[in-house]
Structures are given as C-alpha cells and as structure tokens.
C-alpha cells in the first residue's frame, strides 16, 4: 500500500469520527433538543418552599395559647457549594451551630445537588455570628422561618401536645409532608395536624453571584386554621395549681403517716384532673402532672432532657392514658344499676335484708360456701365502726362496701351464665363508656379493662398456654371449673379488682349519669377557624343514650349531695361556703398492688339542681380519696360555683 493511500485510509477514519460526533450533536440538539431545553430552563429556576406558620390556638374565651413567630434559621443552599468546599463547610457549621457532624452530613446528602435545607433555627445572636462568617460559609444564608411559640409554658401541656420531625411512619402516611418541617406529635397539635399545618408557599427565583436576579410570581404560604379550645385557661390554671397542691398535701400526709409508724411506699408524684361539661361534653380543664414545656420541642429537644422527662412519664397524659381502678367512685354506677335493674340481694346471708334492700355495715361480710364449691370467702371492710343497717342512700353517702358487695353477690348468685343478666353491671359500665376509648379528640387514649367471666376465661386459657409470661390470675384459679368467682363481681361493683379506667372515662360516665344518660365523645376543640375566618364548630358526637329514669338521677344527685354534706367528703367540704347544698361528689380510694399506695379519687358534680360540671380528681398513690382528693375537688368546685376557694387541707380518711 502506498503512503498516500494509507493517509487516505487514515483520513476516512478521521472523517468517520467527525461524523459520529456530528450525528450525536444533531441527535441531542435537534431531535431531543426541545425537551432538553425545557428541562434546562426549569433547572435555572430554584424552587423554594416557604414554610407556613401553624394555626394559632386559643382557649374558649379567645385567650391565645399558641401562636407563631418569625425566627432566624440557618439554611444551606448546595447550589453555591463547590464539591471541594463541602467538608470544610460541614466542619465549620458543625462547630458554629453545635450540630452533630454526621447529622449535618446526612441532611446535606439528602438535599441533593442544588438542593436547599434548613439546618436549625438559631438565636438572634448566633444569627449575627453566622452572618459575620458568611465568607467562609459558602451557600449558607440566614433565613426567616415561622416557629411555634407556646404562650403558657407547661400549662395545658398534654392538651396542646408538642411538635417533632416526621418519622418514617408519618412520611409514609402522608407523602406530601416536608420531612424537614415539624409536625404535631401529641395533643391537639397532633390530632388537628391537618388543620393547623397550613399550606406552604412557593417561591421561584434565579440566583447568580449570590444575588436573586429574577423571581417568578410566588405562592404565599397560608397559615393553618386556628383552634378555639373548649378549655378555660383561668380554670385550667386554677386546676393545675390545685393538682400540684393536692400532690403536695399527699406528701405532707404521708410524712405524718410515716412518722406515726404507718406503711408508706412511695412519694406522690403524679395526678390528673378533668373538668367536663356534663351537658355538651366539652373539656373545660384537663391537667396531668408531671408535665413538660412544649416549647422544648420547637427547635428539637436535646436527648438528655427528653430522657429525663420521659423517665418521669411527663409525656403521659394521665387524664386519658392513666389506668387506675376507679374504686368507690364507681359505686355511683352500681347504685344506678341497682335502682334501674332492681338487682337481687342475697337472701340467706346474715346481715343482709334482701326484701328491704338493707345491709348491716359492720365491717365484715361472711359468706357461706358458694354453690359451685368455691372456697368460702370473707370480705373485710376496714372501717372498724358499726354503721348499723344502711339502705342504698346511706350506703353511697358513707361508701359502704358491704352494701354494694351484697348487690353484686346477689347478682352473681341469681344470674349465673347462661342467664343473659350475668353481665348486667358490666353492660351498664360499657354503655357508660368504660372499657373502650372515650373518643376524645386527643392523639392517644387507653381503653381500660372491664372484668367479665369471658375475659377471665380468656386470660386463664392464655396463662395455661404461656406459662412463662407474667400471670394475670392467681394460679389456684386455673384449677377450678371457671376462673370467674363471685368475689370478682363483688370487687368490680366497688370499682376494684382487675377493673381499670381513665379519669376521662370516669368523667364521661358521671356526666351521663347526671344528664339523663346521654353519652357523648368529649371534645377539647370547640371551633376550627379557617385563615379566611370561616368558623366550623366541632360538635361532640352523641354515642347513645342510656335509659335512666329521672327518679334514679334525682336520687343519685341527692345522695351525691349527702356525700359532701355529711358523708365521706364532708370534712373536706366543711368550709365550702354558700351553696354547699347544690354540690355533690363521691370519694374513692383505689387499691392497685401490695407495694403501691392507694390512689385517691374524687368526683364532683355541680350544680345539683341543673348538673353542668363534672370534676374528676385523681392523685396517683395519693392515699385516701376523702382525705387527699376531696379537698382538691372542693377547691375547684368552690371556684366553679363562685365561692372564694379555700386552702387545700386534709379531709377525712375515708373511701
């Protein structure tokens, strides 16, 4: 081959190479050009989401509880960060803002090329320091972002709830939410999240040399809807104060008891109070202690503080999640069932006059051997005194266990399964709201337990199958025909045994008892007000109405009045002031385990002539209901009824 021919071959190869490149140019510039051009044009516009301020929250009188303010935040725009500047920038920011380096790196990578992310909100002072260092912080800017501000601190914490970054489950549930914007995690912040969140705005702009050179018409963020709560802030503050004083009182009494040689297990640390409107089921006050400051969560709570609060169960809303045996407060329900269902009393037991429904309250109830061969049981009532023969009215007034035991024993004996009435007391309880969530508009709620033969048999079967798990029933029960005994129903009738309920359930049941049987779902939000002012009332849904005769209601109200006038709460109510005859209540002392102090209960109702308020006080391991809880309830009822509340001092040591 001649040299020139070889050069020609080389020339042909070269021309082919030019041709390949030229063809490819034609392909991406002409064939695909328009589509690529569109994408390129969009790319030079930076879309920024503008966080919407969350909706405001007001109490029922329009007092602001939570609003939003504008705070400085450090934002990193990766458009302006050269790859080689990345590490230096992250190091700098980590030190300057005290943010974990690894966390920062994760945020950075997640934002993507040309992405933008908010590192943290900062104090004004820190914002100044960041601004001064901007020349060593490429891509960093200090932006203004809305931030939640709680105006009342820890007051009403559990109803308000708190914020937190969405977790994987939240993001899966709603793919539209911005993973960097905090959402409600508890309380109304969570249950009304969709209303409070608002609509983020959109800003599109072009940046060159760190300056915005063009903007496109932007969408302004729309603040979330406001909530008007059912809560009365003044009442709430009084209730929280009273709760704290009640806990304090309990500890003072325990100290005295301990000095007197009595057995005391724990310091009193927890408690809950609910004030419910018995007519429309609006929650007027709901306090749970220990509490927390929701503001801690706004910019991210530090792990130490979180762990401390979590250990103290500060995030547990005891009004809806605290499960306790309702104890003698439940006698009002048993009372109603006795009246409405005419429960049979045992006929062959000494000290019970079945015909006249009278019981000899001398402290001990001795039973003959039970029909099914269960062991003979003897129930001790700790009251050593002999109260004499009591009818239903005095029995409630003095909280006589023997009376209500008798009714339960009679029921147990007369209505053995398969008799449809075996669960008559439990059925009433279910109807009145026990054993299932009340449906309140808060983020989570416990159901509680109503013990029945069915449930006990289920437990027994489970216990036999899983011998390694902690037992719920005494092992001796597994050996007899049925683990459900008469004593269980008797315990249930006085609110003890395996029975548990939340303070909110107790409040709901009393509200139904005194309003003629109407059971509704409690609400903490009255109205939702959209940003353009449209008010949507939140109606508490009516679940059902339990048939209770007006006579029974009247009788119960009168006897609740006797409790505070001359019964177990009379000492606590001694200095109630004018109108004592128009308030009523019931004390309760709940036993849980052998190593815990008793839980103190008081349920107040007012006014008796037209019941509107139900006040439930629970002091966890507080001691006697009449001694500890009743004075707290009295203090709150004094305020509600327009009396000057008198100091919370120990009442009578009574159930």
């Amino acid at each position, binding site marked *: 081959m001649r040299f020139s021919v070889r050069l020609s071959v080389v020339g042909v190869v070269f021309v082919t190479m030019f041709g*390949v490149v*030229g063809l490819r140019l034609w392909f991406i*510039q002409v064939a695909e050009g328009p589509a690529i051009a569109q994408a390129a044009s969009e790319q030079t516009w930076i879309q920024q989401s503008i966080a919407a301020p969350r909706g405001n929250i007001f109490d029922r009188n329009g007092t602001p509880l939570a609003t939003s303010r504008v705070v400085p935040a450090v934002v990193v725009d990766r458009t302006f960060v050269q790859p080689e500047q990345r*590490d230096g920038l992250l190091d700098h920011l980590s030190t300057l803002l005290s943010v974990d380096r690894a966390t920062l790196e994760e945020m950075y990578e997640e934002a993507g090329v040309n992405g933008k992310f908010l590192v943290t909100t900062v104090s004004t002072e820190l914002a100044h320091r960041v601004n001064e260092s901007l020349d060593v912080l490429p891509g960093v800017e200090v932006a203004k972002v809305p931030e939640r501000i709680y105006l009342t601190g820890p007051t009403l914490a559990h109803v308000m709830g708190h914020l937190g970054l969405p977790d994987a489950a939240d993001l899966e549930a709603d793919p539209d939410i911005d993973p960097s914007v905090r959402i409600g995690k508890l309380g109304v912040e969570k249950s009304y999240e969709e209303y409070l969140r608002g609509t983020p705005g959109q800003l599109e702009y072009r940046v*060159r040399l760190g300056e915005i*050179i063009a903007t496109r018409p932007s969408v302004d963020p729309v603040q979330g809807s406001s909530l008007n709560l059912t809560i009365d802030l003044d009442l709430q503050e009084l209730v929280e104060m009273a709760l704290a004083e009640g806990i304090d009182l309990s500890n003072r009494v325990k100290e005295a008891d301990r000095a007197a040689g009595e057995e005391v297990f724990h310091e009193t640390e927890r408690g809950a109070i609910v004030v419910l409107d018995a007519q429309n089921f609006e929650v007027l006050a709901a306090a749970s202690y220990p509490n927390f400051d929701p503001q801690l969560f706004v910019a991210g709570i530090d792990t130490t503080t979180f762990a401390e609060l979590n250990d103290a169960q500060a995030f547990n809303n005891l009004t809806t999640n605290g499960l306790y045996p309702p104890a003698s407060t439940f006698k009002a329900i048993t009372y109603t069932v006795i009246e409405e269902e005419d429960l049979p009393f045992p006929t062959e037991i000494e000290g019970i006059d079945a015909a006249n429904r009278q019981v000899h309250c001398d402290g001990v109830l001795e039973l003959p051997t039970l029909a099914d061969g269960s062991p003979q049981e003897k129930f001790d009532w700790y009251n050593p005194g002999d109260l004499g023969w009591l009818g239903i009215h005095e029995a409630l007034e003095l909280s006589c266990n023997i009376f209500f035991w008798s009714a339960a024993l009679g029921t147990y004996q007369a209505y053995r399964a398969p008799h449809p009435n075996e669960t008559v007391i439990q059925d009433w309880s279910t109807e009145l709201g026990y054993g299932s969530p009340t449906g309140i508009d808060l983020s989570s709620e416990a159901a509680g337990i109503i013990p029945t033969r069915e449930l006990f048999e289920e437990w027994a079967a489970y216990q036999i199958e899983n011998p390694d798990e902690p037992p719920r029933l005494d092992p001796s029960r597994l050996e007899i025909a049925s683990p459900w005994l008469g004593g269980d129903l008797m315990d249930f009738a006085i609110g003890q045994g395996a029975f548990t309920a939340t303070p909110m359930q107790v409040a709901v049941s009393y509200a139904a008892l005194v309003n003629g049987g109407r059971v509704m779902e409690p609400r903490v939000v009255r109205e939702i007000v959209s940003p353009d002012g449209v008010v949507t009332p939140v109606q508490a849904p009516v679940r059902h109405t339990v048939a209770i005769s007006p006579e029974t209601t009247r009788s119960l109200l009168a006897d609740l009045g006797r409790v505070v006038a001359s019964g177990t709460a009379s000492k606590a109510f001694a200095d109630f002031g004018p109108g004592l005859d128009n308030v009523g209540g019931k004390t309760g002392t709940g036993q849980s385990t052998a190593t815990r102090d008793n839980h103190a209960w008081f349920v107040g109702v007012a006014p008796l002539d037209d019941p509107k308020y139900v006040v439930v006080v629970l002091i966890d391991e507080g001691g006697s209901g009449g001694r500890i809880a009743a004075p707290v309830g009295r203090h709150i009822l004094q305020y509600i009824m327009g009396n000057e509340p008198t100091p919370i001092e120990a009442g009578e040591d009574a159930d």
Partner: protein
Amino acid sequence: MTVLARLREVGVVRKGNRSDRVLVCAILFLSALGLLMIYSATRSTGTFSMERQMIFVAAGLIVYAVFTNIDYREYRGIIPMIAAVIMILLLVVFLFEPVSDSGVGRAQRWIPLGFFNLQPSEFAKVAVILALAGLLAPSNRDEVPQRSPTWKKVGLAVLVVAVPATLIYRQPDLGTSLVFVFILLVLLFAAGATWRQMLTLIGVGVIGVVIVLRFGLLSDYQTDRLMCLVDPAVDPQDLCYQLAQSKRAIGSGQLFGKGLFQEDTLTHFEYVPEQQTDFIFTAVGEQFGLLGGLVVLTVFAVIVWRLLVIGANSRDRFGALIAVGTAAMIMFHVFVNIGMTVGIMPVTGLPLPFLSQGGSFYIAMALALGIANSVWLLRTPVPSENQLL
C-alpha cells in the same frame, strides 16, 4: 552553531514556500472562540480566566512561530535527550503531593511553578510523536529499505509509548495515556505496518482492556464514570451530574443556540462543573447551537485535513509521520472531548485543543503545530501544490 546554520538554510529553502495560512487561520479562529467561551463561562469572576488564557495564547503563538522556523529534522538527532527530559519531568510530578481538591485524593498532573503549573504529560504527547516518527521513518542506518516496519521496530514503538503512558496512567490520567495508544496505532499504520502487525497490536490491546476491567485496575471513579455512560440513572446526583449537566447545556442549545451571553443559559448560571476547561464545548453548544458546534467540528476537520496534506507533501517520512501523528493527536482529543460532552465517551479529562482553558496544553498544541508547519515549509518545492490523494 548548527542550529544557526540550519536556520539560514530554512531561509533558503523557504523561498517560494509559505506558512500554511489555512492552518494558522484555523488556530487563530479556535483560540479567539476559546477566549470568548472561557469568558462566557467565567463571567461571574470577571475577566481573570480569560486574561490568563490570553497570556497562554500569546505564548503559544510565539512558540508556534519559533518552532515553525526551526528545521524539524534537527530533532531526529536529539530524540533520546528530549525523551530523557520528559521522563524526568514526568517523574518529578510524583514528588508533589496530590492536591486534594474535593476531599478525595485526586490526580497530580503538574509541577507547580508558582505563576504557572507545568503539565509534562502535555509535552510528552509531542515528544512521543517525535520519537515514534523518528523510530518508524526509514533512516540511513536501515541497510535495506523496507516497506513495512520490522517486528523489532513495532516492539520498540510499543515501548516508546508504554513507558510514558504508564507513568501518566499512574498520575492517574487515563485519557492522556489513551492518546498515546491512538497515536501509536495511527503512526504504525501510516508507517506501513502490515495487517498482521496491526491486528496483533489491536488484539493485545483488547486483551489488556479485558484484564484491566476484570481485575479492577481502574480506580473507583474511573469505573463510575464509565457507568454513567451505560446508565446515567445509577448516580445522577454526583459523578454523573457533570455529564448530565453537560448534555443538558448542549441539548438545550438546539439548532441555533441561545445566543452569546444570554441570561437563560446553564453557562450563565455556571451549572456545568469545569466548564471552562474540559467542558468548554458545552458553552459553544449551548450558546451557538448545532450550527456553532458544526462550525467548530469543521474547523477541527480543516486542521486535521491540513496536517494530513502536510504529511502527504513532506520531503521525508520523518516529517510526514510528525504531521500525521499531530493529526491523530488532535483528532483523538476532539473525538474524546466532544464525545464526552455529548455522552458518547466517558469523562476522562482530555481538553479540547485551542478552546479549553489551560496553559501547558495550549502551548503543547501550538508547539506540535509549529513543528508540523516547519515540515510544510521544508516540503519538496513543487510548482503546483499537490493535494492529498
């Protein structure tokens, strides 16, 4: 003294011969366009980059003029010396710590001289062309003139390329190493290698590539860059981002481009990383469209065509092979660089001759073309210039 004598001789020989004006015009056109494109890509930082490149262009043109006027046959005798100097410089590069410019240890390709970073690998390209041309062109020592190079010469040629290519590959700079391989293949073919020799070499090359891929001798970022070509969705955010942006810039230029210094361009917003160096063609493609791109391709084609013409008209085979090697070098840069910006070649870091920002590269290209022009000046004078074919 001999140099001066030779210079005088050039003067004599030049009578009637002129510099290749088409070649000069093409170089000037591309250099001017390059300055404009560099400015368009770096306007946010002012005229600094462009002014710096202007100095290199000026220096390059001087180099071009000087080497045009040196008799290219002078080099044949000092090839071992040139090779030695280049080898030393390539080794010196390794004395400097790799400059970490993105956190990861990256390539060290230059010797920092303060005012200027000397990149010996660029000059090694020219040296390799000279060495191969010297080796493959018949010399007086060849007793029997042969139509094809002996196997021994083929082996030596491979060695001449392999040593610097390996050093440069270790920098690492895969692209430049591949330039050497391409020049070797083209020159062997032009020098009359038999089909068996060519096929043997290509076969060895293919086996080599297979070994490199099989035993993972490519560094991670090299493999990743290859993956971007196969499937850009693998990692469009980081390594492939540059490539994606490059294609987007060029594609959006469409037929006529968006116009010089237009606001609505990725060039203006500096969205293409390394645009003024390896990705300078994106500035052309976006602002001047397919039309501008084809003009640039055509001008490169003219340069390559002129170099082949010089090769065809050289007074000896040494000069011819210098011109053909230079053509191969330019061709490969253009093909790989523009191919990279449009997504048909991997990102290898080969700049675009005369357009890309970079001093060593510009001067080395000017040097190569200056030598080629000297071949043209000293071609056998003929009454009418015989064109290729």
